[in-house]
């Protein structure tokens, strides 16, 4: 029967392996978008769609700055890189450059409507009835040093209203100027050229990143060989994502290798045999392979973070094998079946409690974490089944005789808790730890800011800072949506927003923004302006102004201003290739729905409060939304820990009764509290990822406690050795994650490291629990 089951399990695994091979052959697609691990939430489906569209659009923007001390070399390099990107068809190059042609079009668009357009400064002066100031300002410029307006311009616009309007237009990238067809600026003697565009693939897709870098990196390297002075700065979600996935993949291989080698060495040293090593590796391989194979069947796309946690799975899957093989040191157990029987209650209960601990993760409403939970459950179950079915068949070992020293050493923690000799030390240590722990808990502070979780290498942040310094802006992902029944209403709402946003900039809550209305005032505003100019400026001062300038009383007919208002359609319907205001197309999402990109927003809540009075305005802060979500789910995860403790207690009370259950649960609960205190002591912000690790700490901690509780007095050294080995392997895999550069993974690893040490050291305290009920036919262990 047992052999039949073992053979059946082999067939199942072969099928899974075939599936896995087939999937790998046909191409595996892993997702690397860490925010995809979180659910998206928004007020309404429409807003959600727009939110996603705009966020996706922002995420596809990419900027390269190519710099060289020699302007000619910078231009040549920019041309070469631009050409290669163009040919690669990976990027749509966008240009908001203002060169001669486009400026002429801008002038042609506005000039006929010059009596409808007022800069804020002039408008405010006219509203305050200070028309003579406007007139005087114009004279000051005409006579002054920056006397640039020519005769035709002065004659048709003697108050220089259009010049003032154009001068104050918030044109994007105004720090750059067009030279030889390139957007160029100088910084510290270096000529920088901007190449911008929208990538055509998903920034988080690994294969797209590969394609892009296959074009970009060789081009830059080649150019740098020709001119060592050449510098390139990059900005865009695709570069952030690539850096992130590179770290993740790199760490998966380095940390995975370290963990495997460490575990292998440990087993070789302890058992002095190959069998425990290769059989444990087999179990790990089966666990990981089965998990990967089935997960690919269950989920459309696996996340790279799931892979990272898959590495960690090794640490737990190895527990059962470890516990089994520690029985080799027991001379009383010569037969593999006896060995299995002796541990079956321990690993059985351990498996059940761990399954409960992991299963709770499925309740976390994060798609990625569900993947992790299911991935782990599959791997864990496959490993467990393999140990139970195959180890007795594979095990050909006679009891080992070299373990005296090991066994003695293994029992040290147990002795520490029970020997009267250590009594004072125990109380001292407990008091000390309790005090330090209290300090840690007191210092503990939650930190849900999603930006702190992005572990960006200093290099990429430096590049971002450089670009910010050189071109004066970086793409941010915060924006507002202004909704109206039609464009006119949306424009009017933006005009109502303008003074509020100006105040926000003054209050240093914002560094900049863009609205359609700044380039195209509403018809209502244009009419107001026309009336203002006529009443407050031309009627009282025009004759005087013309006289002062020595102009004839009438201007030439050819420059007569238009009577109607300039419309948004007029601006947008211009030839797309020669748009005077190319960025307006991006800002007008649909008629009556306008995008207002925000720069350098500090406090979205304050902005939301400030604009609350204007209908149809929504402040969208994806980063803030994710931060809020992280907070929400951190709270939820803490409840999940409570829930999993309750679920486990049901099993433990059934087995050990109330008192025994408390004894068995106490070590893992203490481990959770200890690890939490340690996070506080280290001054780390307490995040969702710490909490997720705590869930695992208590699952594993309960394993150890159960092994101790299930163990007869004389088998304690054997059990403790098994726990030693398990804990060391767990630390080698999970604890190593503390060295990850990915903040979230580091938080997870550190919590595991501390928690497992506590759980291991405290596990013998569960030894006093008495078994009340039996598990099926299996007797109390050992």
């Amino acid at each position, binding site marked *: 029967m047992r052999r039949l089951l073992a053979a059946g399990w082999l067939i199942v695994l072969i099928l899974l392996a075939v599936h896995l091979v087939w999937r790998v052959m046909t191409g595996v697609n892993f997702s690397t978008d860490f925010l995809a691990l979180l659910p998206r939430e928004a007020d309404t489906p429409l807003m959600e769609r727009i939110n996603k569209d705009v966020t996706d659009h922002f995420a596809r923007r990419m900027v390269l700055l190519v710099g060289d001390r020699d302007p000619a070399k910078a231009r040549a390099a920019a041309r070469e890189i631009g050409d290669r990107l163009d040919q690669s068809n990976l990027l749509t190059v966008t240009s908001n450059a203002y060169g001669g042609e486009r400026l002429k079009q801008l002038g042609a668009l506005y000039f006929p409507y010059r009596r409808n357009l007022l800069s804020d400064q002039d408008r405010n002066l006219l509203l305050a009835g200070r028309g003579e100031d406007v007139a*005087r300002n114009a004279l*000051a410029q005409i006579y002054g040093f920056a006397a640039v307006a020519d005769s*035709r311009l002065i004659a048709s616009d003697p108050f220089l209203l259009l010049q003032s309007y154009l001068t104050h237009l918030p044109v994007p990238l105004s720090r750059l100027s067009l030279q030889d067809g390139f957007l160029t*600026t100088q910084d510290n003697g270096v000529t920088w050229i901007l190449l911008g565009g929208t990538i055509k693939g998903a920034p988080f897709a690994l294969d797209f990143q590969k394609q892009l870098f296959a074009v970009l990196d060789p081009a830059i390297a080649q150019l740098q060989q020709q001119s060592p002075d050449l510098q390139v700065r990059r900005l865009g979600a695709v570069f952030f994502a690539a850096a992130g996935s590179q770290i993740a993949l790199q760490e998966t291989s380095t940390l995975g290798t370290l963990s495997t080698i460490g575990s292998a060495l440990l087993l070789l040293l302890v058992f002095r045999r190959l069998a425990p090593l290769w059989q444990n590796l087999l179990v790990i391989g089966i666990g990981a392979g089965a998990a990967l194979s089935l997960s690919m069947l269950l989920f459309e796309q696996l996340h790279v973070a799931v892979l990272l946690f898959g590495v960690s799975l090794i640490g737990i899957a190895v527990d059962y094998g470890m516990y089994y093989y520690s029985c080799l040191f027991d001379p009383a157990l010569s037969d593999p079946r006896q060995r299995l029987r002796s541990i079956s209650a321990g690993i059985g209960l351990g498996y059940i409690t761990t399954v409960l601990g992991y299963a709770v993760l499925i309740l976390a409403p994060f798609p990625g974490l569900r993947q992790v939970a299911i991935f782990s459950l599959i791997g864990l179950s496959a490993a467990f089944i393999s140990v139970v079915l195959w180890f007795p068949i594979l095990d050909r070992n006679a009891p080992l005789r070299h373990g005296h020293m090991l066994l003695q050493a293994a029992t040290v923690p147990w002795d520490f808790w029970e020997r009267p000799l250590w009594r004072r030390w125990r109380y001292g240590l407990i008091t000390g730890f309790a005090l330090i722990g209290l300090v840690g808990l007191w210092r503990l502070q939650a930190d849900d800011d999603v930006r702190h979780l992005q572990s960006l290498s200093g290099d990429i942040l430096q590049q971002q800072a450089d670009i910010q310094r050189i071109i004066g802006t970086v793409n941010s992902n915060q924006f507002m949506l202004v909704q109206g029944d039609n464009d006119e209403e949306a424009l009017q709402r933006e005009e109502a927003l303008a003074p509020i946003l100006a105040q926000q900039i003054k209050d240093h809550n914002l560094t900049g923004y863009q609205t359609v209305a700044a380039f195209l005032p509403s018809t209502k505003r244009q009419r107001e302006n026309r009336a203002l100019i006529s009443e407050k400026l031309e009627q009282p001062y025009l004759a005087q102004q013309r006289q002062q300038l020595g102009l*004839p009383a009438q201007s030439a007919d050819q420059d007569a201003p238009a009577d109607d208002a300039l419309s948004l359609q007029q601006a947008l319907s211009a030839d797309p290739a020669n748009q005077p205001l190319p960025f307006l197309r991006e800002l007008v999402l649909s008629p009556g729905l306008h995008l207002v990109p925000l720069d350098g927003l500090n406090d979205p809540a304050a902005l939301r409060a400030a604009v609350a009075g204007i209908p149809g305005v929504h402040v969208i802060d994806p980063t803030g939304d994710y931060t809020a979500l992280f907070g929400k789910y951190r709270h939820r995860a803490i409840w999940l820990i409570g829930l999993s403790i309750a679920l486990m207690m049901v099993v433990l009370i059934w087995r050990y009764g109330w008192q025994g259950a408390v004894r068995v649960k106490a070590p893992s609960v203490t481990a959770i509290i200890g690890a939490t205190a340690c996070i506080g002591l280290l001054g780390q912000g307490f995040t969702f990822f710490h909490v997720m690790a705590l869930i695992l700490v208590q699952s594993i901690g309960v394993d150890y406690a159960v092994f101790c509780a299930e163990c007869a007095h004389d088998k304690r050294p054997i059990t403790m050795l098994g726990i030693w080995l398990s804990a060391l392997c767990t630390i080698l895999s999970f604890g190593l994650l503390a060295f990850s550069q990915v903040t979230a993974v580091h938080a997870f690893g550190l919590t595991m490291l501390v928690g497992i040490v506590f759980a291991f050291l405290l596990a013998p305290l569960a030894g006093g629990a008495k078994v009340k009920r039996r598990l099926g036919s299996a007797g109390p262990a050992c």
Partner: protein
Amino acid sequence: MKQWVVLCLLCMLGVTTASADDAQFVTPLKPGSVLRGHFTQERSLQGFQAPLKSEGSFVVAEGKGVIWKVERPFATTTVITPAGLVQNAQGTETLRLPASRIPFIAKLYDMLSGTMTGELSGLKQQFDVKTAGTAGDWSLQLTPKSDQTESSDPQNMPIRQLDIAGGQYVTSVDIQRQNGDRDLLTFTDQAIDAAALSADEQALLTGAKSE
């Protein structure tokens, strides 16, 4: 806008006329020293009854900036520093352009009023430069190269001719545009003042920086 840059540099007796040959006539200002002088500006605009005349004084503080004080017909002070341009008329700030916006605005003025385009260092690419005279009495005549004037659109090269004359200092700049407008600047009473800037001047130059 480019115009003031040009003038600014010319006032600084710059070697900025782009060629070492031309630079032999002018002595660069030593860092830290201050050049003061008087100017008159005459703008002859097409269709205007009379030239727009203004006069006043200027201060060039090497490495710090330029103060351009129009005294007649009415007081206007323009301060140009690396941080940008600030203009005051009768005690009220009438214009403030941070340097960060100047590239765009420079282009804007190219379009609006059509001053010269292209980089200063590229002057010689766009102009034929004729030099005459001696170190004590020299003149430069800049005319657009033939392919520039043949360009179908006069907006691209609005300057018809640029005449600069001087001895120890630049004494006159005459800008003639394609559309017939003409600016004539004459500089007199120029002297290098070893003394530091006055407190007022210092305040103007630093005030222009702060925003």
